[in-house]
């Protein structure tokens, strides 16, 4: 069910439009529902050849020798493609925007760095013939020690994964092994914080799981050009990458994409086009290179796994005064796009909250696994998971409703963000209010009256003071000098007026409006269970304090 609340922010919109805002049926709907929208693999060629890739069975190994002579003589085989056949074998995707060193071969020649790394291409009259020929290739390897854990990879003596980055970390600005974020003074703020909450989070790798696997068909055209039918998400990105690897001019390539059977970030990497084009050049025939499902699942790049450590310093009145984040992106064996996501992740910290002291170190780490890549929410999804679970723990530790705790710290127009740009056009408070209302999640009046458009630090002369919820106005205000704004200010030097504000956050049990209590403490909870969940957001549970949970949830109280 979906509804629009046009009344909110109506004064900022001109709703007097004709076509924009209409639920117009998509232009290609008829093709989609009748099964006639053409995918790259719907193009048919009588003399089509098929490229299959022989992949490494080892996570890290030196290739001692390759004997493909029997495979080359196998029935249906037209051509074996080796690393030496690739005009520019070493590439990195973001070389198109001059970011990073060429670190990944199209076909491995000396060392394989992840299980599934491409070594040889076999072009044959059918996929079956190519796969059968693959069984005839003899490769001898010297296995090398491998590393799979991001923090293990950073230890001295860890196996070196990526020859371009021997220390297993992407290099930022020619001098750092991580991206830094430094805002305010977290050390001083942690000293003053009354509650510190620390934890570790682990994102899982995720497969994009598109219905249509990655693939392309390269077709020799007239005048030395090639037409490439592809499932790419980024036509010119793939075209320019393919031109570079094949040492061709970009106008020799005519890329045609179109209907895509699911992308989600997994079709930016240009995994198939460079080799299908090379195979078409070497054989003079149309060549298709498409991933099988097993290849897509295990050797097509996944969403990378991030490991994230978060530490929050919180005052008893609910203000988060410091956040420290250490984050490791598991890039796998090569860079692809993880280096970019690291910077995006850094920009996103500390999330949509106004925290006066923020410190983050974000690493792009190489390990011996399938290179990771973009996926929906790249650089942000995992850190949102970590920070939003973490802020929930902060709410429990401070004894506040988790949504009110968020709203108290939420950014508003004019607030300064940790990357030193002022927030504008914010709308999260309104999202929280509307959701709470629908879900019967009780918010006190002062939180229902908050606005993203007022109360930001711009209005307050650049001073961030999160004790500003209207109902708290009677509580003694912090002197502006102590309120902790700007990049070098230490927040809350003066201990906040703990007692009155603390009381202000206790939810009055009887004073709850007629609104129904949320089903947070269902009847089943009274059954004896190993749980005794602290329902921080439940009216009845509001007397829980930080001390009570400190041993259970890894929080500590100062």
């Amino acid at each position, binding site marked *: 069910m979906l509804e629009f609340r046009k009344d909110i922010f109506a004064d900022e919109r001109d709703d007097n439009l004709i076509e924009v805002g*209409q639920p117009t049926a998509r232009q290609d709907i008829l093709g989609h529902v009748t099964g006639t929208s053409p995918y790259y693999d719907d193009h048919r060629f009588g003399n089509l050849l098929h490229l299959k890739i022989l992949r490494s069975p080892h996570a890290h190994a030196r290739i001692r020798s390759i004997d493909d002579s029997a495979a080359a003589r196998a029935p249906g085989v037209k051509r074996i493609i080796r690393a030496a056949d690739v005009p520019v074998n070493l590439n990195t995707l973001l070389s198109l925007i001059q970011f990073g060193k060429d670190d990944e071969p199209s076909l491995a020649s000396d060392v394989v760095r992840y299980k599934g790394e491409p070594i040889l291409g076999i072009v044959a009259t059918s996929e079956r013939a190519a796969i059968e020929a693959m069984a005839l290739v003899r490769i001898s390897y010297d296995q090398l020690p491998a590393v*799979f854990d991001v923090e293990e990879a950073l230890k001295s003596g860890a196996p070196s994964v990526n020859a371009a980055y021997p220390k297993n970390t992407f290099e930022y600005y020619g001098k750092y092994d991580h991206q830094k974020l430094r805002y305010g003074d977290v050390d001083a703020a942690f000293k003053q914080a009354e509650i510190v909450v620390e934890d570790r989070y682990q994102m899982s790798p995720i497969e994009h799981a598109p219905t249509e696997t990655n693939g392309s068909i390269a077709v020799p055209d007239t005048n030395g050009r090639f037409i490439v039918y592809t499932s790419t998400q980024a036509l010119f*990105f793939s075209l320019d990458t393919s031109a570079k690897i094949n040492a061709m001019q970009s106008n020799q390539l005519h890329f045609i994409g179109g209907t895509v059977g699911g992308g989600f970030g997994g079709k930016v990497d240009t995994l198939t086009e460079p080799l299908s084009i090379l195979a078409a050049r070497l054989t003079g025939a149309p060549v298709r290179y498409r991933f099988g499902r097993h290849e897509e699942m295990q050797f097509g790049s996944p969403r990378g796994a991030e490991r994230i450590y978060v530490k929050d310093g919180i005052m008893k009145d609910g203000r988060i005064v410091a956040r420290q984040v250490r984050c490791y992106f598991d890039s796998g064996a090569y860079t692809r796009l993880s280096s970019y996501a690291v910077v995006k992740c850094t920009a996103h910290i500390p999330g949509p909250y106004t925290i006066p002291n923020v410190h983050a170190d974000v690493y792009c780490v190489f390990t011996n696994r399938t290179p990771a890549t973009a996926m929906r929410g790249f650089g942000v999804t995992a850190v949102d998971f970590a920070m939003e679970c973490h802020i929930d723990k902060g709410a429990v530790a401070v004894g506040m409703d988790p949504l009110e705790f968020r709203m108290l710290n939420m950014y508003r127009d004019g607030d300064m963000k940790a990357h030193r740009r002022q927030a504008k056009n914010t709308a999260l408070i309104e999202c929280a209010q509307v*959701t709470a209302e629908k879900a019967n999640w009780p918010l006190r009046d002062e939180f229902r009256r908050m606005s993203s458009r007022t109360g930001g630090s711009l209005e307050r002369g650049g001073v961030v003071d999160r004790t500003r919820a209207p109902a708290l106005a009677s509580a003694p205000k912090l002197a502006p000098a102590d309120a902790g704004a700007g990049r070098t200010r230490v927040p809350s030097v003066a201990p906040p007026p703990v007692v009155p504000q603390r009381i202000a956050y206790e939810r009055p049990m009887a004073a709850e409006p007629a609104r129904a209590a949320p089903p947070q403490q269902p009847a089943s909870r009274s059954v004896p*269970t190993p749980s005794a969940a602290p329902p921080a957001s439940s009216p009845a549970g509001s007397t829980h304090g930080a001390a009570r949970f400190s041993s259970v949830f890894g929080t500590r109280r100062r």
Partner: protein
Amino acid sequence: MAKHRGRGVATINYPIGMNLGGDPSQALVHSNPSGKFTVALSSIDLGQGMKSVTRQICAETLGVPVDDVYVDTADSDTGPHCMGSFASRGTHRVGNAVMTAAREARGVMLEAAAEELEVDPGDLETDGKGSIRVKGAPHRSISVRDVAIAAQFRQGKTISGRGIFLVPLSDVDPETGEMSPATCYAHACLIAEVEVDDETGDVTVLKMNSTYEIGRAINPKLVEQQLVGGSWMGMSHALYETPEPYYPNTRDGPRDFNEYLMPGPGDICPHDITVLERPAPDGPFGAKGPGEMCANPVLPAVANAVFNAVGVRINDLPITPEKVLRALKARAGSPAARTR
């Protein structure tokens, strides 16, 4: 042994477009002699509806019916450069490029119409139904079709426009991380209600309530499609999916859809979605982009709901029954639990 219900909340924001900018997209708009317009793009419609969104933006800007606009995509010979369909950039970046191109084409169209009607172009307006008329004198009008014929065959004008949208690339301070990552942000709050079976460790998502602020919704149905699909993906990320179930150990990797777990139709829960539109100052008609961010709040909201239900924090995704059971077991054996 029992089933426990709990609720969890998450609030998030999401940057629109490639981080730091520097990601241009171009568009070309032109009319054929019958007054039908083509938008030429190299951008890819992944199914999210980029063609529809740019088509509506073009029609609105030109002042013609949407049926008179066709969006041609994904051809490097005919479509000008676009960075690609990722980073929630399609509506914002490509939409802006199309708007700029359509504005230029509209200018030529009104000039041609003015010549036919012998008035000043500034006195003309479009009715959105295929006609151009004199403001305040609607009986003096001409169809877009007749204008296109006149422009092509009598006036020798090309009713066309070029557009590019580029957020200039921001520097990053290596020491502090100071940067301009994005020009606008989408927002979301989501409350998930779950049921946790403390015997099996199974987590069932019962209900989701959410509010998404996405700037102007160019097409509400496509917004709905993104938000519904995205929340499914978020739930899948939270509870089911991974190609490496024992990460960082690489063993037991699934090879196909039989082995790769994702929620099926029976696992989908009711989801009450509200959309807010606070227009982005630099978005086409204020649009931002709902594409990526819609999955993000679901993961932590579900994790927080599991805690609310049974009092254990699962910090490693996905939240499998195995992890829930191990956490419940560890918690039951902890001194803190015994003293309760």
